[in-house]
């Protein structure tokens, strides 16, 4: 007997199926939109077969993570992670050449679509791309605020490059401003109110691409957005039929937040930790509770590493070549330069600690300090003095088995690429 029957919790199967209702064996198959075939052998036993080209994999075991248009270096930091015997191996880490062309800043620029091929070492089946875009958004907010942002998406996207057009490279804002949550106003209220998207589902609204994830706190969501034309442009960079192809496009901050997932300290704390991400232009605080995000905050009162270096140079009168020595060695006391820079950061950190303690019952005696290439010991000392908080600066490669031939110097430069890869792999650790 032939019958059509969607099986199990399959969302909108584009499908065709048949079932042989015998007592011993019921066989049915469904081809879903993501090109998987499900064979229901018995009532409870289902075998899922992924068809080639479907790209419907939920977890990847071989993935390349690439940070695109990084403001911190020329080229794209890229890593390749392969899962072997339940352990992740770092098989390649290097700065690869940028794609030809710049990240478009408007729809008119999108016809110039280059084709990008990664070096052989990074030719994994999948690639998770983390994009540094001045027009991108990564923030935590309420559902209403996100919907408001969706309603005014394109206008906001247009306004952003105009503000920073003089100082961008590849459409990236050099002097980026804190991503203040947008608030609703009467002027940008459209006629149709968009519906709040399902968690993890990418939606297009008003010329922007949005994706949200619920946070541990009820009513709050992490959300990420990019202009539609940038998303499309990036999605078409890596050609079909050649390794790798894009399986994930993330905003760089999103990948940064996910990078902590590889850290053994994160797992030792059962996924409840506080991380401070120091980048060249900004500092971010991220809080996690049992692996779920509870806090994402861009420190509003301080710049990043570049600002710290400037403060050292101005206060101590040293050149660029001595900055690292000042931060790492004890020949010169950097306290007069560092303290004024760090104090507002720690003030924000104290507020964040208080928020995590009161709202989520999380008390930390240590936090992870990531992305800082020099001076972590000084930061930790000051934090212990000011907040009684020990800062641990783990190597981003901790938690990975680094294969032979992989350059381990300057691991902090690959933090975003690592985060993109591990988030894009969607694995349980």
């Amino acid at each position, binding site marked *: 007997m032939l019958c059509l029957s969607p099986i199990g919790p399959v969302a909108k199967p584009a499908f065709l199926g048949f079932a042989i209702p015998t007592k011993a064996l019921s066989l049915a198959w469904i081809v879903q939109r993501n090109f998987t075939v499900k064979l229901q052998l018995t009532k409870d036993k289902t075998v899922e077969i992924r068809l*080639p080209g479907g790209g419907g994999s939920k977890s990847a075991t071989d993935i390349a993570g690439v940070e695109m248009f990084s403001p911190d270096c020329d080229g794209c930091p890229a890593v390749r992670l392969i899962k072997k015997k339940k352990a992740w191996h770092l098989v390649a880490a290097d700065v690869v050449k940028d794609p030809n062309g710049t990240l478009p800043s408007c729809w008119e620029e999108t016809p110039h679509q280059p084709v990008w091929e990664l070096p052989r070492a990074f030719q994994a089946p999948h690639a998770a791309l983390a994009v540094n875009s001045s027009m991108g958004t990564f923030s935590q907010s309420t559902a209403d605020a996100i919907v408001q942002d969706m309603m005014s998406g394109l206008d906001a996207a247009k306004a952003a490059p105009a503000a920073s057009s003089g100082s961008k490279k590849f459409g990236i804002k050099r002097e980026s401003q804190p991503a203040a949550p947008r608030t609703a106003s009467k002027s940008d209220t459209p006629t149709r109110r968009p519906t709040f998207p399902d968690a993890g589902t990418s939606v297009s609204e008003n010329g922007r691409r949005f994706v949200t*994830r619920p946070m541990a706190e009820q009513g709050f969501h992490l959300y990420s957005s990019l202009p539609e034309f940038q998303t499309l442009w990036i999605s078409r960079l890596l050609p079909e039929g*050649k390794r*790798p192809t894009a399986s994930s496009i*993330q905003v760089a901050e999103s990948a940064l937040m996910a990078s902590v*997932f590889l850290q053994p300290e994160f797992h030792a704390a059962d996924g409840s930790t506080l991380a401070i991400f120091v980048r060249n232009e900004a500092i971010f605080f991220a809080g996690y509770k049992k*692996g779920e995000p509870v806090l994402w905050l861009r420190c509003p009162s301080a710049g990043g590493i570049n600002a710290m270096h400037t403060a050292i140079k101005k206060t101590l009168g040293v050149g660029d070549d001595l900055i690292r020595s000042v931060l790492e060695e004890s020949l010169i006391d950097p306290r007069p330069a560092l303290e004024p820079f760090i104090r507002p950061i720690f003030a924000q950190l104290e507020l964040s600690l208080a928020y995590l303690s009161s709202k989520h019952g999380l008390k930390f005696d240590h936090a992870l300090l990531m992305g800082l290439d020099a001076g972590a010991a000084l930061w930790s000392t000051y934090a212990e003095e000011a907040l009684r908080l020990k800062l641990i600066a783990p190597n981003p490669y901790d938690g990975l088995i680094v294969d032979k031939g992989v350059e381990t110097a300057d691991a902090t430069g690959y933090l975003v690429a690592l985060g993109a890869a591990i988030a894009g792999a969607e694995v349980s650790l």
Partner: protein
Amino acid sequence: MNSSSLHLNLLKPTERRSSSPIRLRVMLPICAILVCAGLLCWWGMLFTNLMMAKTQASGIEEDLANKGKQHAEIIKLRDEARELKLQLEQLDYYKAGVRSVAEPLAKFAEIVPMRVQIKEMSFSPLPAQILQPPGAKAPLFGPTENVETQKLVIAGLTTKETPVVSLMESLSSGFEKLVTSERKIKSFRQDNAEAEGRKLLSFEVEYTMPERRFAK
């Protein structure tokens, strides 16, 4: 803990491309066409086989009908042959049962005494040779029994008893093919006929002839 909780993927599932050189959207129609072509070929082969089988079956049926006719003819011929064989067998029986009486009869004339006139020599009638049993297709040939016996009746006139006795004695030797020793004088009486002024005697002697055997 699953890293998907920190994965904010802006790429839509429909935008995902396969890195495999084998592309499903290309391969699927090709496979579908190949499967259809394969099925058509298979059906074509089945149809051809069916037609061939039908042709063979009709050929066999025709052949069988011809063979049936030939078989009937052969059976008929075999029956005829068997019949002819039986007839030949019967003829052989007759051949074996041939009674050569010409020589003894020629010799008989020499032994007839002077005073005896043979008026008649007759054989007793034989039983019917051909039987037509009810329902039989063909008449049965041959004698009804394997052994056939006949009587020879010698009738004549004589002047007195002695020449007849002499004739009977003469017949007792050298005429085994014609008569046996078994004889019976059926009549011996005076006849109305006269010769030389004397009344003649008529006589009838019945001899049992030798058995005629129909055997190979």
